[in-house]
């Protein structure tokens, strides 16, 4: 699983690094820095949950391409939990 922040959307609310300090840190202006861009398996659940904390919809989780599954929306399960707020376009 890959974890990225879309810097066109991130404005530095800091919800991610406050709630998930193992996954994110802040840069000098308060924007997010991803600490685990390749998410270890035991952190995947946390990474998926973290998508949902961002007021800008800036957090993107990409699932590793599975052998036999339809293509995913960015956000995977978390995007399903909050259908209206999957990353626009």
């Amino acid at each position, binding site marked *: 699983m890959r974890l990225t922040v879309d810097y066109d959307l991130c*404005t530095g*609310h*800091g919800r991610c690094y406050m709630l998930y300090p193992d996954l994110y840190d802040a840069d000098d202006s308060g924007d997010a820095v991803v600490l685990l861009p390749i998410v270890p398996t035991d952190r995947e659940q946390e990474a998926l949950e973290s998508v949902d904390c961002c*007021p*800008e919809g800036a957090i993107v989780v990409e699932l590793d391409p599975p052998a036999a599954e339809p293509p995913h929306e960015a956000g995977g399960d978390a995007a399903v939990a909050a259908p209206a707020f999957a990353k626009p376009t």
Partner: protein
Amino acid sequence: MTPSASRAAEAAPTVACEHARRFTIYDTGTPLDPYPTLREIRSGCPVARSEQFGGYWIVTRYADARFVLQNPEIFSSTQNTIPPRKDISVGPPIPLNVDPPHHTDYRKLLEPLMSPKVARAMEPRIREEVRKLVAPIVTAGGTELVEGMAAKLPGLVFLPLLGLDVTELDELLSLHTRLLATTRVAPEDREAATRVREEAEAALHAKVGALLDARSAMPDPPEDIMTALAVADLENAPLGRPEALRTVKLLFAAALDTVKNTLSMAMYYLAQHPEQRAELVADERLIPVAVEEFIRFFSPAPTGRLVMRDVEVGGVTFAAGDMVLVPIVAANHDDARFAEPDRIDFHRRSNPHIGFGAGPHRCLGSHLARMELKVALEEIHRAMPEYHLASDVPPRVHGGAIVGIDRLDLVVGPAGAVAP
């Protein structure tokens, strides 16, 4: 859907839309439910039209509010109050009323000076100030908290941020009150109020001007906001004395009443909910979550935008030149986004609230505001884990630019608890 159900669903919107026509942010309900009308509008007429102040749209759903705030090229901040701001003798506030690309330059200058790192560095000093404010309350056995504490804390934090001394707090607060003299005034008192405001503005301009000059003259000025405004050069946007003044004046307006009112309303809530208060006392780690929840729940700062081109929002077409009100509190109580939005829950897992706005104008002071609120709640509850309301009469709630309560009389100690 059965025909009768669909007719009922159709009937509701007209009532809600009808109520929206009269809605303004000055019409408030009770402290814990300041805008019952907005709830009705969100469910019955989510993108509504008010006929007040020359007419404007009201956007009440989370998704629509975020769309408006995240798209500055369609929704400009050059006008963001309804009715438009009048008291702007030096020009509109920076960066609040500036659009990208100039806005981006101002933000790049200011963000590092108000970052999470800066807020963390300020924590010990904030704690010391809070302790000094709380100790006499415990000794006296109670207080009027709004003016007695909540109004003072943000000023004490903000003064050094600007390079001023904390001994100047009374002067700062008096200036602040006088700058707002014309905002809540009867027409017959307007002339006198305008004079008060203009004198306060002249005093502020002189003071800030002198500070900026002093910073420019220093060989090794401290790294803070005042220095940045005095000496920085921006790539695209102008930054002379007028722009510096417009920025400082905004910080005045944005830093003080926001934190004051959020803290006051949080304390009003906690005074009436001893079980939830006990949770915070027992486990301080819940306090940062509680702070976010209070900001979501009270969302005291509404905003607005000017429509730059025809655009559809939630099935309604706005035209270039229209004004849009974004009552952020409505978005943050949208049950399409937040489970049980009208409940304050210190264990809420998913809380992507937009209480600090969204998009490029996301509150610059948010990291500082959170730190102030966190430390205040920690220190208050360490020093006085139990307190209750001195009176059953709910305080008056005022609407407008920043929603808040005017008074909060607290008694320290356990009570014949007041029922919620």
